[in-house]
């Protein structure tokens, strides 16, 4: 079993929809949680990061962490065609901050 599981999609939604992207993990020691966006032929771009449980909001993006369920989510409100990309979740332990474990990514297409 992989440490981090993520539905690869592809996910296709109409413009303006609310998008929910999710990851599950098995290592209860993970404390840092990140979401990256990766456009085709580009490197991953950091969107949000959180420490431990709770919610964090930044504009149209909201990150949620539920450590009891080992489940993290990224919500995108009012999705735009420019949000079409692959979204990677990533996480690490507090004592192994250099060893970041990435999910395989979910491919999202927002249709105008």
């Amino acid at each position, binding site marked *: 079993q*992989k440490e*981090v599981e993520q539905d*690869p999609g592809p996910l296709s939604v109409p413009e303006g929809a609310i998008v929910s992207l999710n990851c599950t993990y098995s290592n209860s020691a993970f404390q*840092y949680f*990140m979401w*990256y966006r990766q456009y085709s*032929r*580009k*490197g*991953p*771009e*950091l969107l949000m*990061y959180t420490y431990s449980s709770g919610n964090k909001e930044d504009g149209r993006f909201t990150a949620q962490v539920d450590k009891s369920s080992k489940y993290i989510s990224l919500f995108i409100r009012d999705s735009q065609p420019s949000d079409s990309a692959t979204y*990677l979740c*990533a996480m690490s332990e507090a004592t192994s*901050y*250099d*060893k*970041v*474990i*990435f*999910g*395989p*990514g979910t491919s999202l297409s927002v249709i105008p």
Partner: protein
Amino acid sequence: EADIYQTPRYLVIGTGKKITLECSQTMGHDKMYWYQQDPGMELHLIHYSYGVNSTEKGDLSSESTVSRIRTEHFPLTLESARPSHTSQYLCASREGWQPQHFGDGTRLSIL
């Protein structure tokens, strides 16, 4: 915003050649990383460095080597390229407790 530059962006080369992938960052970050990414797959850490003269192997076994002679520069070298080395190579850096920031990668294809 971190500025990380990787060159070349694309490289197609024959088997047996020596290859060096360049990575430079202008932020003065001590920590730098190399990842390998295949289509639809997770990023896998192959090398990292805590600073000048520091290099460590990552979780994914790799035939590549790295060096860190200057803070801003972290090149990756393949002494003899093989088709199995075909992949995308991503460089990243960070400072303190901030997450890693990535360059745009080098797409390597070995014929």
